[in-house]
């Protein structure tokens, strides 16, 4: 058993970064994730020699990630919504150049500069591609401080397996709250670099070259086909989710991250009142658990999707269920967090009371 600690989500994420043998972190402070840079500045370099650099902006940070990842280093950055928006161009380049890296978005309320309170308004940006071109991020959505730790390690594994950017999509509440976590043991820093890394031409070898510029359409299409083949493989092998009480479920509550935690409480209160409610929590938002929703849809009377936004993941739920069940949505926006009781109230009014 690993070391047990009481930690804030942001601190746990940072500690996991150090323990995963991350070589460098480039970032720019923004609430509600400023603890990441603070924690790393205090802890990281002395312990593993990891490079911690506060960039002059998020645009610079993501391009430092691009450069360091191109040298075959294990690198990560974090930010919150407005900062993540600034990184979108870089992410598109990194996806095109096929470089592994992990980034975390500690989502706050938007649009615009918005508010520092937790929100989930960046689902579409993370899952549907906030930058230009046909690329995908592999998106992991932690719902606990423990998963903030676990998904950093998993994120690096997946980023390196698929040679592409992985996003941890979390939010201000999970970043700020404290829970008990079990930490994995310190992993060594990587010493070998992949053969594609630009670390200088070795004798008798070709030059390594990293770019996202492919002027010839025929070449560009080939790059695209290769990316799409990777995304297909992710859809086939990397779908992750959690389910609760599906066996006797007549209704399903669904949500991701913090939204899912609140749904679980609403489900508990609902079950005490006699409603047979089950729960689906996607852990990978891309790839989305399409088959799970498709198979559960004909067996239940309705699915209630709850998010801290205007209804973004619900579009994927609707696509996955293909009209085989009723899909309802409840959400709050702008940093307001829905209470478990109000979710159940909506469920009773719209789904139980308003049954077709």
């Amino acid at each position, binding site marked *: 058993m690993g070391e047990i600690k009481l930690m804030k989500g942001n601190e746990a994420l940072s500690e996991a970064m150090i323990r995963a043998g991350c070589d460098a972190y480039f970032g720019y402070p923004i609430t509600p994730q400023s603890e990441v840079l603070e924690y790393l500045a205090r802890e990281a370099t002395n312990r593993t020699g990891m490079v911690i650099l506060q960039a002059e902006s998020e645009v610079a940070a993501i391009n430092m990630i691009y450069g360091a990842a191109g040298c075959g280093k294990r690198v990560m950055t974090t930010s919150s919504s407005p900062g993540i928006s600034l990184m979108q161009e870089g992410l598109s380049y990194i996806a095109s150049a096929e470089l592994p890296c992990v980034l975390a978005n500690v989502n706050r309320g938007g649009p615009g500069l918005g508010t520092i309170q937790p929100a989930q308004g960046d689902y579409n940006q993370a899952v549907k591609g906030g930058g230009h071109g046909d690329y995908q991020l592999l998106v992991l959505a932690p719902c606990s401080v423990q998963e903030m730790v676990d998904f950093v390690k998993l994120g690096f594994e997946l980023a390196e397996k698929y040679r592409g950017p992985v996003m941890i999509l979390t939010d201000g*509440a999970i970043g700020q709250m*404290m829970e008990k976590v079990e930490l994995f043991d310190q992993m060594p820093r990587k010493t070998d670099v992949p053969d594609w890394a630009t670390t200088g031409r070795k004798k008798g070898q070709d030059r390594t070259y990293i770019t996202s510029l492919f002027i010839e359409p025929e070449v560009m299409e080939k790059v695209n086909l290769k990316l799409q083949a990777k995304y297909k493989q992710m859809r086939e092998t990397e779908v992750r989710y959690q389910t609760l009480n599906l066996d006797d479920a007549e209704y399903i509550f669904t949500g991701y991250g913090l939204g899912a935690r609140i749904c679980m*409480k609403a489900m508990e209160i609902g079950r005490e009142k006699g409603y047979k409610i089950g729960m689906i929590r996607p852990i990978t938002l891309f790839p989305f658990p399409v088959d799970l929703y498709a198979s559960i849809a004909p067996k239940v009377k309705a699915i209630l999707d709850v998010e801290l936004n205007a209804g973004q993941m619900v579009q994927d739920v609707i696509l996955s269920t293909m009209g085989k069940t009723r899909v309802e949505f409840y959400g709050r926006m702008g940093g307001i967090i829905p209470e*478990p009781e109000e979710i159940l109230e909506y469920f009773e009014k719209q789904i139980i009371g308003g049954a077709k």
Partner: protein
Amino acid sequence: MTEEIIFAGFGGQGVLSMGQMLAYAGMIENKEVCWMPSYGPEMRGGTANCITIISDKMISSPIISRFDTAVALNQPSVDKFESRVKPGGTIIYDSTNILTPPTRTDITIYAVPGSEEANNLKNLKVLNMIILGAFVQARKTVEPATVMKALTSVLPERYHHLLPINQKAFEVGMSHIHN
């Protein structure tokens, strides 16, 4: 057993550390714990609160609106959270500071003259330990000894000379609850 608690008061009264200490103690006793602070502008001088949940089983939502116990260190906190205590629940409040006490009859109400006792101890900063002592005695969520163990772990060593006064404050708080 699941205990859902809100600690609330002015920023600077040590409200967030109270909840954190309880969560830490719960962790030492191998319980599931969750601590959710209010953060943002209200942290800078206004009202501050945190939700602490201690449970034998997995904790679902870290953010809740009904509480088993509300611990209030100022008037706005009583006004805001009295109605959010579950029937049969508990309010513990600092009766030195709070002039309009809670009035509900379906909950247990403990008035603890925390600020007055802190004044007697000649250290106003131990108010939170006094009230935490009262909480632990009233609710028995964790063992009193575990809280002191938690404080010893959380407090940097250079402040360990403050442990005795905190221990004393904690015991004074406990002595105000007769259940």
